[in-house]
């Protein structure tokens, strides 16, 4: 079994800040793409996450009539928190915050938390647009969740473990992304979906006046938007040990490689926004169940057969 050391509680306390830094890079990438599409100069979007943060932090909060403020606040504050919890099981090079023997399942459990949070963010404001958006997210979640679970299982089969560090260590020589492309792509797609981003931004889209964001302003809105980029960052970070060989790589150390790979994946996830049309849940349901589900099951079969070959 691979050797990772658990970082102390002080590092765990810094984890949210570190993830926030990664998410800021992601947000800068997304803002730059949008700014360039509007015709602004290259790199003009780099400062926009900060401009936007400053704007939202001095904007007044707003509540709607007869809103369920408790559940609304649970959703708003929950998004960034769950994103952090998602990331704690990911080893960065030789250190990890929580060396859980079931890290993969933990990640899965946290992504399921997002079901509840996006829906609650839609329910809370007592507003037609956001309520529809919250429900629409659940409709999409039913289609991506099972393929995602199988995509998470495939590397675990190959590594004979659910411990994330073991998964990274099992890829000496060949990355899982190379010989498990289906699982890798489904994982990335699901990451975009549970962050409600890009083609899967069904919970927060223009056709419902911003969906769950339709009534949210000020620091509340900031937390939701930051939470979404944090979720993308956590998923990108997780992709590294799951599919991209963890910290393995020449010259740079394992920590640097983990960060570099995560940034590349994150940039890819962020750049998908706006490049392809919205995938509506009523279309995607059948694709998830009739195409992606069998495909990921076959992927798992391949992983199992290869793992068996390797073991005997």
């Amino acid at each position, binding site marked *: 079994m691979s050797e990772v050391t658990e970082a102390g509680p002080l590092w765990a306390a810094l984890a949210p800040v570190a993830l926030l830094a990664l998410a800021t890079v992601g947000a800068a990438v997304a803002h730059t793409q949008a700014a360039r599409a509007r015709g602004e100069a290259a790199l003009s979007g780099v400062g926009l996450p900060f401009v936007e943060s400053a704007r939202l932090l001095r904007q007044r909060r707003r509540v709607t009539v007869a809103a369920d403020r408790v559940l609304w606040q649970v959703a708003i504050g929950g998004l960034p928190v769950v994103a952090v919890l998602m990331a704690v099981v990911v080893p960065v090079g030789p250190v990890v915050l929580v060396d859980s023997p079931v890290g993969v*399942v933990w990640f*899965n459990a946290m992504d399921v938390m997002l079901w509840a949070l996006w829906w609650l963010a839609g329910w809370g404001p007592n507003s037609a647009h956001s309520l529809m958006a919250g429900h629409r997210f*659940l409709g999409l979640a039913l289609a991506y969740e099972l393929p995602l679970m199988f995509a998470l299982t495939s590397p675990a089969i190959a590594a004979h473990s659910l411990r994330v560090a073991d998964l990274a260590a099992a890829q000496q020589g060949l990355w899982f992304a190379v010989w498990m492309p289906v699982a890798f792509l489904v994982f990335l797609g699901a990451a975009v979906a549970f962050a409600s981003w890009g083609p899967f931004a069904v919970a927060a889209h223009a056709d419902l006046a911003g969906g769950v964001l339709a009534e949210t302003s000020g620091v509340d809105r900031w937390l939701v938007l930051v939470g979404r980029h944090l979720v993308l960052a956590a998923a990108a970070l997780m992709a590294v040990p799951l599919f991209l060989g963890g910290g393995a790589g020449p010259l740079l150390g394992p920590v640097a490689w983990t960060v570099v790979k995560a940034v590349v994946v994150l940039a890819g996830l962020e750049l998908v926004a706006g490049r392809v049309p919205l995938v509506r849940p009523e279309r995607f*349901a059948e694709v998830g169940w009739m195409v992606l589900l069998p495909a990921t099951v076959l992927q798992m079969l391949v992983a199992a057969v290869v793992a068996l070959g390797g073991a005997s």
Partner: protein
Amino acid sequence: MTEVVFWVAAVVSVAAGVAVFRTDSMARATYALAASFVAVGVILLAFDLDYLGVIVILMMIMEMAIMALFMIMLMGMNPALMPMSMVHSKRTATAIAVVVFLGLATAALAIPWPGRSGAPAADLTRSLGEAVMGSKMLVMLTISPVLFATIVGTLVLGHPRDRYQRYGDDLDRARPDDPIEGGVGR
């Protein structure tokens, strides 16, 4: 440490369970129940049952998210904005609850539980997997037809449009007659 976590989680779990019946909102009731289950999951984690604890959290959040949907859809009243009672047949329910609680509590306290003999396996998830594939194989083999039957049974009862409605009485329509088109055809 384990004891602290246990007691905190236990209190949260019971408090959230009480909250289920004290609120006027289907959404709050459902998510209070979810919180209660999460606390139970934390208790399992405190007992070093890693896989079981995490999977309880995972499954229960998922199931409660879906249950909220049905609570809101199918209860015959406004799901949040009117006073409502979350309890039914109070007297019977109270009686059953008290009897069961007393029974279980008596059993818990009165039975001379044996001490632990031997140590638990190093990797419980692995031994769970081995059990499922080995000695408890029968469970798995039974569950698969049961789940299949569940799929067919619930959908026969719950799905409003079967294939005859979609393809006509002789199933001879080239394309299904669905109100909103899907993503894969047929």
